[in-house]
């Protein structure tokens, strides 16, 4: 009997998300409370479906790991009416892999550009080369972009590289930092505070004013890294400064 119930639940393809009020002008559509790849795919699927089939009154949507934040105008639509339409969209928003863009992002690891590489290797009882090899071998996805412009949080970090964040966050870490923290890795665009472990730096600007596109990455994009030496980094950094994209679009 218990088994039958479980089977029925498993056959139920999509459980509805929770609708949480974020004030009178936004709804947090929550698919999970934890970092969960399946939930993140549902977030991105709902985001795409709302873009394809807009709901009057929605001003913008913000995908994050586990929820979609929907900003709306309460003069045009109420929480209840919007919630109903969102649930209807969520029930038919199916995650899909088609049309995923894939980027290859160059990174110079270690040394002055990745000041935590040695320490991370020590903590994980291996060599810096092994850390780099494993990080480069990863197949990542942009789970969300947030905090500051272009800060891209990637899912897909292999378990071996999972590491608690630093006890004392640094107040200033460089632009282009590639780091790991918890079960995530990330591409940071602007210089700023961070509690993650700094493995390297990329010359790629995920956000650059007066460049087309201003924002390079979209939530859902696939990412791989490729190791470059410090000299190549310096060259590509100059090119990026003058507006070149530098990252390689492997699959458009």
């Amino acid at each position, binding site marked *: 009997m218990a088994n039958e119930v479980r089977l029925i639940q498993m056959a139920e393809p999509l459980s509805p998300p929770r609708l949480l009020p974020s004030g009178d002008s936004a709804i947090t559509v929550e698919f999970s409370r*934890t970092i969960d790849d399946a939930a993140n795919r549902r977030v991105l699927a709902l985001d795409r479906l709302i873009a394809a089939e807009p709901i009057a009154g929605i001003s913008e949507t913000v995908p994050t*790991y586990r929820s979609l*934040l929907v900003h709306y105008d*309460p003069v045009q639509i109420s*929480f209840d009416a919007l919630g109903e339409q969102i649930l209807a969209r969520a029930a038919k928003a199916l995650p899909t892999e088609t049309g995923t863009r894939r980027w290859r992002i160059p990174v110079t690891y270690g040394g002055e550009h990745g000041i935590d590489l040695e320490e991370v290797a020590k903590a994980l009882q291996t060599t810096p080369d092994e850390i780099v090899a494993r990080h480069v071998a990863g197949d990542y996805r942009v789970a969300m972009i947030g905090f500051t412009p272009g800060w891209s949080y990637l899912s897909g970090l292999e378990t071996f590289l999972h590491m608690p964040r630093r006890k004392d966050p640094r107040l200033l870490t460089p632009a282009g930092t590639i780091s790991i923290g918890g079960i995530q890795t990330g591409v940071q665009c602007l210089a700023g505070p961070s509690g993650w472990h700094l493995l390297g730096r990329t010359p790629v600007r995920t956000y650059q004013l007066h460049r087309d596109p201003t924002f390079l990455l979209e939530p859902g994009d696939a990412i791989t890294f490729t190791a470059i030496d410090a000299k190549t980094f310096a060259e590509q950094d100059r090119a990026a400064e003058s507006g070149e994209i530098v990252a390689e679009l492997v699959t458009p």
Partner: protein
Amino acid sequence: MSKLVVTSIGPASSVQDGGRPGSQRYGLVPSGAMDRLSLAAANTLVGNDLFAAAVEIGPFGASFTARGGAVRVGLAGASRNADIAGRPVAFDSSATLAEGETLNLGFARGGSFSYLAIEHGIEGEPMFGSLAVNARAGLGSPYPRPLQSGDELKAKAASGAAERRIELPVAADAPIRIVFGPQDDEFAEDSKKLFIDSEWKISATSDRMGYRLEGPVIRHLDGHNIVSDGTVTGSIQVPGNGQPIVLMPDRGTSGGYPKIATVITADFGRFAQISAGRPFRFKAVTMAEAQAEAIKFHALLRSLPDRLRGIEDLGLNIEALRDANVAGQAVSAVDVSTWQVAVP
């Protein structure tokens, strides 16, 4: 070409407008005015669009000098002692600086931010459709940073239109209304009750990113780390030390602390104006009430052009002021800037 030269200015003063929504999915926060009603009132006084760019002036004094011709301005928000070349100027009214004249503004009273709108707007290069300063992202025009003395704001020559004042509803000294969520289930009922029942103060370390609250410690049910999710202006997040932070227009677009509640749209500007150290309370309302208030607030913004009055109508107010003086209010018949008696 006329211009307004910043001759002196304190911190936390920058060009702001309605902000640049639409790119939060890329981590770019909208920014924009702390108190949108006051921004809109200042713009209305000089015939600008409600959310055109204006100077948001922080709690300290400031002065501006007209060069290259006359400049007409609208003043709203936290009232201050104000004069142009010695002539007193009232808040919630327009005024014109002749070539070479200086507008002097004192410290903010009964609030934190005042708005100085320039007739025909501030000239600049919009980025994502906005001139609003977001220093961290290098955005804002004519300067992508807070204003400094010596900065110049290009303006069109004053129209010579009759000066106006604007009648705004009296700002209630009522609790700041919130709706619970999105993560109020991370807190026990007695923590939520403590949040609503307590008196709070805004810490002096607050800024356009966040207002830190001082008051009792609000405890989480299990830990203060949640998986980062999206924030809104007015989100009240509770970090590990249990001292809430209200996220302001320059917030991060995502955050990893549980958000117990959100300030309602209609009360956000009033909240932003609360001076550091002054006690206030929160009050929980339902979603239906919050949305009804948001609709009323929207109607108030749209009604601003109908609230303009001629300066000559002030005669009526002088009678009212005499009564107010009898009642012991701090209004001086010789200090025009104290005529705005609505401020506590």
